[in-house]
C-alpha cells in the first residue's frame, strides 16, 4: 500500500509548488565577522568594509547595501574608492589588486568585480620588491600609484591595470634629488604613505617608513621638497589648503610640516607627543581638520602611554581645549572623518568620526557638544554579548510596535540626534509588508528587540533581566566613572562587551505574545520571568516562586551552579517590559523549553528534570512533573556542558563562539602586530585540526534504550484547546515532549474569567505516549477539524484568525528528531507517519509551521512544516499528509552553530548565525522576500571634476 503513496508527480501540484516555494539567501544582518579594512567615498557617500574572509560590503543610506566576495577568500587589506567614480580598488593579503564597480542592471545597482591584477617585478627580484604597502588612486582617475616594500612606486593604468614602467618612481631617482649627507639608500625602504596634494594633482607626497618624506613632482619627475623626520613614520595627512601636512610616528608623536616654495628642506613647525612624556605607542593615522573658528580638529588613532594604557584601543579627538580619547572595547581597524567635500569650501568642518572596530561600528557626532555617538541604523553588533537564543514574531500589531519603540527611544537619549551621515545611494525596495520582531537572548541576561521587517536589522529596545537578581557586579556601579581631571581623558564608547558577569543570567528561551504584550523569558539557572509592557517607569516587587521539579525523587544531588539570588524589596524598572513574576526551577538547571498562554494566563517551563505549570494571574504553581528516569544520574549532576552525551551541536556552537572571542582577545593583547597574531591563529587552527584528525573517526551503533541519559530533558511544551479525553468536550491542555520520546498530555481546568482569581487552575495527567523509536520530541502540534494548526492564543480574539474547527476530529502531530507522526484525538491511534532518519540519515533540528502564499494568486495559501535538519538542509513537508515537498541545502552541515541558531518565521523566512555577529536571512517563500534593492546614481564624468563633483553629489543625495 505504502508503495502507491510514494510521492508521485502530480503536474498540478508541481506547478503549485513552483508558485509557493523558492529558496533565496537574501541579506546578511549584523556586523561583518572579522573586518579587516575600511574605505569611504565622500563623493558617493558610501562606506566599504572588507573582511578577513575576502568579503567586501558597501553601505550607504539605510537599506542601501552591496556585497561582493573575492574568489580567493583572502583578507582584504585596503580599500580605496576611485575619486569621483562608482569604482573601488581592493588590496588583498596575497598582494592582488581587484577593481570593483557598481553598475546598474535591471533598475538596481550591482557590485561586480571587473579586473584583478598582481604586480610583477623584474625576474629574480625578491617578492618584497612588489609587495604593495600603499595605494593612491589619483584624482585623474587614470592611474593608481602603488608604493611597495622595496621603496619603488609603480604606476598602474586604470581600469586595465597596465604597469606604466617608464613612470615608476624608484628610490634611486628619489635619492638623486636629495643631499647625500643626511640620507642613505636605506632611508627609501618601504613606502608607508602616498598622499596627493589637495590643490595640485601633479604633486604627491611620499612617506618612507624610516622617516623620509618627499614631495614628488609628477610632471618633472623630481622631488621638489624633502622632509627628514627623526622617527619611524606611520602616516601622513595634508591640510586642506596644501600649505602644511602632518606626519605621525611610531613613538606616539606627530609633526606639522610647512610646504613653502622657498624652503626646500623644512624643519617641522611643531612636534608633539600628545600623551607624553613617558614612552607612547604609535600614532598610526592622523587627520587635521580646519574649522571656521580657526581651532583645528586633530584626530588620531593610538598614541597612548605605553606602560599604563598601551592595551587601549583609542582614537583621540583634540579641538582647542577639548580633548577626548574614545576608548573602544575591540581593536580599531580603521577610521575616517566625514567632512565637507565641497572643494570650494574653505574649511573642512568635520561632522562625524566613523570608526570601524573589530567588533562594532561607532560613529561620533563632532558637531554636537560632548561629541555623542550616533545610533547606527545598520551594522548592529548582534554579539555585544553572545547570542544564546532567538525568537521571531511576525506581524506585530501597530500598538505594540509603537509601545516598544517608545520604550526603546527612552533608552537611546544619550545618542546624537544627527541624521545618519553615510547616506549615499537610494533604497528602492518596497516598504516591508508587515512589522516583524526578532528577539535575541544574550549571555548577559539581556533580550534585544530588533526590527526585522526590512533589510536593516535595527535595534528597537533592549531589556535587561539583571535587575531582578543580586549579582556580584552591581549594575548601578558604573565602570565608566572617570573623573574630569583623569589623564588621558578616556571615554568608553560602543556597546560591544563580551564579558558576562554571571553566565547564569544567560537567556535561553523567549516567548512573546504579540496581542497581550506578555513576555516570558527563561534562563540558564532555571529562572523564568513573566513580564508585562508598561509605558512608565515603575518600582514594584517581583513575585517569587520556586518549582521543585524533583519532588519525590530522592537521593539526588545537584552539582551544578546555584540558583540566582533574588533582590528583596521593590525594584525600579524603566519603561518597557517589566517583570512581575519570577519562577525558579529547583534544581536550577537550564530551562530547555518554555510556553506561555496569554489567554489562560499560564506559563509552562521545562528543564532536564521535568516541567511545571505556573498560573501567573493567581501567582501560583499549578503542578510540576518530574520526567527524570531513575537511572539518569547525569542529568542531576550539573550544568549541561559537563555531560558528554548532551547535544553536541549546542556545545560546539558555544565553543566556537568562545573560540572566536578568545582569538580576538589574543589579538588585542598582541598590540596590533597583525602578522604575528595571524600566525598564532593559524597555528591554533592547525592544532585544532590535528586534534580532530587524531580522534578515531568511528561511530558506535547502538540502539537507544530507555536508560539513556537525558531522556527526561523536556524539549518542547505546547498549549492547545483540544479533545483530550472525549470527542464531545474540548478543554485546555498542556503537552510536553522529552528527549526520550515521551509525550505527556495534561488536561487543564481554567476557571472562567469572572472567577479566574477565585478558583484554582487544576491539571490532571490525561495521556502519556511513548514513541518506541525513542527519539527526542522536538515539536508537538494539534491540527483542527480542517487540518489547520490551532491558532495562537488571543489570535482569534483579535480577529486575526478563523476560529478553529471544533466540530471535526482533531489530530496530534508529534515531531521527533527522526519521525513525523500524526495521531487521532481523543483516542490516540496512529494515523500517518513520515520517517526521516531511518531513510535519509538526517535528523530534525528545527521545525515550525509556516504559511506559504502563492505568488500568482492572492487567495491561495497553505500551511506546511518548515524543517531544518542536522545536515543543514531545509525541507518543506505538507500538512496534514506529511509529504516532502521540496528540499534546499542551506547551511553547511559542519556549521553546527549556524544550525543551532536557525529560527523560522511564520511566513516562510528564516535567520541563522553565519558568525557570532551576523544573521543570514533566507526565504523559502515566493511571496515574502526581503532583500536589498537599491540604486547608486552614476555621476557624469567631466574633465572639470572639481566643480562638477559637488553638483552631482548633491543631486545624488537629493534623488
Amino acid at each position: 500500500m505504502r508503495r502507491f503513496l510514494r510521492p508521485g508527480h502530480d503536474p498540478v501540484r508541481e506547478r503549485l509548488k513552483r508558485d509557493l516555494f523558492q529558496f533565496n539567501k537574501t541579506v546578511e544582518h549584523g556586523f561583518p565577522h572579522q573586518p579587516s579594512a575600511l574605505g569611504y567615498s565622500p563623493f558617493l557617500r558610501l562606506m566599504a568594509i572588507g573582511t578577513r574572509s575576502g568579503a567586501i560590503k558597501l553601505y550607504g543610506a539605510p537599506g542601501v547595501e552591496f556585497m561582493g566576495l573575492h574568489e580567493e577568500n583572502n583578507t582584504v587589506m585596503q580599500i580605496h574608492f576611485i575619486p569621483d567614480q562608482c569604482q573601488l580598488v581592493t588590496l588583498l593579503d596575497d598582494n592582488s589588486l581587484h577593481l570593483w564597480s557598481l553598475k546598474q542592471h535591471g533598475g538596481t545597482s550591482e557590485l561586480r568585480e571587473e579586473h584583478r591584477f598582481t604586480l610583477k617585478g623584474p625576474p629574480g627580484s625578491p617578492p618584497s620588491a612588489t609587495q604593495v604597502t600603499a595605494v593612491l588612486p589619483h584624482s585623474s582617475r587614470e592611474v593608481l600609484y602603488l608604493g611597495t616594500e622595496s621603496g619603488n612606486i609603480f604606476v598602474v593604468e586604470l581600469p586595465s591595470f597596465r604597469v606604466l614602467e617608464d613612470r615608476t618612481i624608484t628610490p634611486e631617482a628619489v635619492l638623486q634629488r636629495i643631499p647625500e649627507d643626511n640620507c642613505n639608500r636605506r632611508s627609501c625602504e618601504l613606502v608607508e604613505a602616498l598622499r596627493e596634494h589637495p590643490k595640485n594633482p601633479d604633486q604627491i607626497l611620499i612617506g618612507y617608513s624610516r622617516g623620509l618624506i618627499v614631495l614628488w613632482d609628477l610632471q618633472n619627475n623630481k622631488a621638489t621638497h624633502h622632509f627628514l623626520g627623526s622617527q619611524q613614520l606611520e602616516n601622513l595627512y595634508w591640510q586642506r589648503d596644501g600649505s602644511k601636512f602632518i606626519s605621525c610616528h611610531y613613538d606616539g608623536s606627530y609633526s606639522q610640516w610647512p610646504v613653502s616654495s622657498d624652503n626646500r628642506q623644512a624643519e617641522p613647525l611643531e612636534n608633539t607627543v600628545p600623551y607624553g612624556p613617558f614612552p607612547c605607542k604609535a600614532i598610526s593615522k592622523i587627520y587635521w581638520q580646519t574649522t571656521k573658528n580657526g581651532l583645528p580638529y586633530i584626530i588620531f588613532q593610538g598614541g597612548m602611554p605605553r606602560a599604563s594604557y598601551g592595551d587601549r584601543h583609542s582614537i583621540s579627538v583634540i579641538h582647542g581645549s577639548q580633548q577626548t580619547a574614545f576608548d573602544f572595547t575591540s581593536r580599531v581597524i580603521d577610521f575616517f572623518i566625514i567632512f565637507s567635500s565641497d572643494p570650494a569650501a574653505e574649511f573642512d568642518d568635520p561632522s562625524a568620526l566613523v570608526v570601524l572596530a573589530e567588533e562594532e561600528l561607532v560613529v561620533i557626532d563632532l558637531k554636537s557638544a560632548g561629541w555623542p555617538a550616533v545610533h547606527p541604523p545598520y551594522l548592529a553588533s548582534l554579539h555585544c554579548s553572545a547570542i544564546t537564543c532567538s525568537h521571531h514574531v511576525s506581524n506585530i500589531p501597530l500598538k505594540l510596535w509603537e509601545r516598544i519603540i517608545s520604550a526603546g527611544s527612552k533608552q537611546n537619549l544619550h545618542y546624537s540626534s544627527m541624521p545618519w551621515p553615510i547616506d549615499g545611494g537610494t533604497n528602492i525596495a518596497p516598504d516591508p509588508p508587515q512589522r516583524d520582531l526578532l528577539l535575541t537572548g544574550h549571555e548577559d541576561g539581556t533580550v534585544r528587540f530588533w526590527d526585522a521587517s526590512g533589510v536593516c536589522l535595527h535595534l528597537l529596545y533592549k531589556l535587561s533581566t539583571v535587575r531582578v537578581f543580586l549579582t556580584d557586579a552591581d549594575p548601578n556601579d558604573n565602570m565608566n566613572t572617570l573623573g574630569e581631571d583623569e589623564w588621558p581623558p578616556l571615554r568608553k564608547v560602543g556597546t560591544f562587551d563580551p564579558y558576562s558577569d554571571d553566565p547564569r543570567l544567560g537567556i535561553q528561551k523567549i516567548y512573546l505574545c504579540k496581542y497581550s504584550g506578555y513576555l516570558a523569558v527563561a534562563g540558564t539557572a532555571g529562572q523564568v520571568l513573566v513580564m508585562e509592557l508598561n509605558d512608565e517607569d515603575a518600582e514594584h516587587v517581583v513575585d517569587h516562586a520556586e518549582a521543585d521539579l524533583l519532588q519525590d525523587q530522592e537521593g539526588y544531588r545537584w552539582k551544578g551552579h546555584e540558583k540566582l539570588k533574588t533582590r528583596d524589596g521593590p525594584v525600579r524598572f524603566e519603561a518597557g517590559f517589566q517583570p512581575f513574576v519570577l519562577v525558579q526551577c529547583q534544581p536550577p538547571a537550564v530551562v530547555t523549553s518554555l510556553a506561555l498562554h496569554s489567554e489562560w494566563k499560564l506559563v509552562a517551563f521545562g528543564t532536564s528534570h521535568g516541567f511545571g505549570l505556573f498560573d501567573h494571574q493567581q501567582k501560583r504553581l499549578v503542578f510540576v512533573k518530574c520526567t527524570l528516569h531513575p537511572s539518569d544520574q547525569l542529568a542531576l549532576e550539573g550544568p549541561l556542558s559537563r555531560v558528554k552525551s548532551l547535544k553536541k551541536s549546542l556545545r560546539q556552537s558555544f565553543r566556537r563562539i568562545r573560540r572566536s572571542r578568545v582569538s580576538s582577545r589574543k589579538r588585542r593583547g598582541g598590540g596590533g602586530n597583525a602578522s604575528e597574531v595571524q600566525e598564532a591563529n593559524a597555528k591554533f587552527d592547525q592544532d585544532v585540526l590535528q586534534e580532530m584528525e587524531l580522534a578515531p573517526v568511528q561511530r558506535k551503533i547502538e540502539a537507544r534504550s530507555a536508560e539513556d541519559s537525558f531522556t527526561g530533558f523536556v524539549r518542547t511544551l505546547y498549549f492547545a484547546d483540544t479533545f483530550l479525553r472525549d470527542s464531545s468536550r474540548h478543554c485546555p491542555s498542556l503537552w510536553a515532549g522529552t528527549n526520550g520520546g515521551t509525550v505527556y498530555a495534561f488536561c487543564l481546568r481554567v476557571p472562567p474569567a469572572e472567577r479566574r482569581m477565585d478558583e484554582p487552575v487544576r491539571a490532571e495527567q490525561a495521556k502519556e505516549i511513548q514513541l518506541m523509536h525513542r527519539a527526542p520530541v522536538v515539536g508537538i502540534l494539534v491540527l483542527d477539524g480542517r487540518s489547520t494548526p490551532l491558532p495562537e492564543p488571543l489570535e482569534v480574539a483579535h480577529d486575526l484568525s478563523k476560529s478553529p474547527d471544533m466540530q471535526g476530529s482533531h489530530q496530534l502531530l508529534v515531531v521527533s528528531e527522526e519521525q513525523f507522526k500524526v495521531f487521532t484525538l481523543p483516542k490516540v491511534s496512529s494515523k500517518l507517519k513520515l520517517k526521516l532518519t531511518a531513510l535519509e540519515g538526517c535528523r530534525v533540528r528545527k521545525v515550525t509551521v509556516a504559511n506559504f502564499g502563492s505568488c500568482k494568486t492572492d487567495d491561495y495559501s497553505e500551511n506546511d512544516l518548515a524543517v531544518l535538519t542536522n545536515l543543514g538542509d531545509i525541507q518543506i513537508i505538507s500538512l496534514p499528509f506529511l509529504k516532502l515537498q521540496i528540499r534546499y541545502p542551506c547551511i553547511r552541515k559542519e556549521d553546527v552553530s549556524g544550525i543551532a541558531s536557525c529560527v523560522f518565521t511564520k511566513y516562510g523566512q528564516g535567520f541563522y548565525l553565519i558568525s557570532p555577529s551576523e544573521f543570514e536571512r533566507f526565504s523559502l517563500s515566493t511571496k515574502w522576500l526581503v532583500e536589498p534593492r537599491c540604486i547608486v546614481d552614476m555621476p557624469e564624468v567631466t574633465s572639470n571634476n572639481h566643480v562638477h563633483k559637488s553638483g552631482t553629489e548633491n543631486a545624488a543625495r537629493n534623488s
Partner: protein
Amino acid sequence: EFRRFSLERSKPGKFEEFYGLLQHVHKIPNVDVLVGYTDVHGDLLPINNDDNYHKAVSTANPLLRIFIQRKEDADYSAFGTDTMTRKKNVLSNVLRPDNHKKKPHIVISMPQDFRPVSSIIDVDILPETHRRVRLYKYGTDKPLGFYIRDGSSVRVTPHGLEKVPGIFISRLVPGGLAQSTGLLAVNDEVLEVNGIEVSGKSLDQVTDMMIANSRNLIITVRPANQRNNVVRNSRTSGSSGQSTESSLPSSTPNILGSLLQGEEESDEEDIIIEDSGEPQQIPKAAPASESIESLSQIELLHESTQNGFLPSSEMNLNHSAGSISMEYEVPEPGRKSLEEDGTIITL
C-alpha cells in the same frame, strides 16, 4: 528447586499425564506451568503436547533435564536464548518432516515462543559477494555492539578502477549482538541500511540511519572475507555458527520488498498510557509481558537401560547433588521460585 524422578522410556504415556505428574511431584496442583527440556544441543525446548513429550523422552540419554516455570510470569524468550540460530536447525531436524506434514494443526509451541532472529536474508537475490544481514534485537540485553568508520574501496567503473569512499565496520564489541551472530566482521563494507544505499551519505548520516532502524536493522555488506560466502543452492551452513535460509518467511523478491517488510516489522507500536492507567500499544495490541521471572528446575532421571526397567507408575526421584546443574539466568529478584517446602520427594 530440583526434583529427580524416573520414567519408563518405552511407555512415556500422554503429555497430560506427565503434566499432572509434574504438578504432583512439585505439589503445585493448581499452578499453570510451562514445561521445557534441554535437548542434546543444550537448547531449551518446550514440552506442551504428546509429540514433543515423546520426542523429549526419546532423546534423554539417560537423564532428561526438565524445566518448569510458572506460566503467568514465564519468560518466553528463555526458550532458545543461548543459541537462537541453532534452535531452528534442531527443530527442523528433530521433527520428522512427514509427521509435521500429517498433523499441521499440532501446536508445536506457543506463538510467543517463535520470534525472528538475526540471520542472513535475501541470498537468492543478492550477488554472491554481498551479504544482507538482519540483526534482530529482541528484548535481549545484548548491545548491537559494532562501530562503523569511513574508508575507501576500489570499484570497477567504466573508467577503470576507481577509489570510492565507503562505510566500513571498524570494530565489534565483544559479547554484542553483531559479534555473537557471527554474520558481520571488521572491515566489512556497508552498502545498504534497510534497503537504502549508503553511498553519498556521511558517516554521521549512516550512524543515524542505523540507530533509527536499530530495532530491525538490515544491513547489506560486502564481507571483507569473501571465503565465507554462502554457497548457492545449498541448504547447508556456509560456516559454523551461521545459519542460512532461516525458517523465517523473509526471502523477498527485491530490495523494495525487503524495505517494506522491514518497515512493517519495525513498526513497534508506540505506547499510550491513558489517565494513568495501564500502558497500551497504539493501536491496540496485546500487552507485552516481558518480565523475566523465575525458572524452577527439575531434573528428570531416566533409569538407564542397564538398570532394567522402572515401573511407569512409580517415580523415583533421587537426590543427586552431582547432577544439579545451575541454569539460572535469572536476576536476584526473580529468585522467588515456586513455593515448596520439601526439597526431596521420594516416591
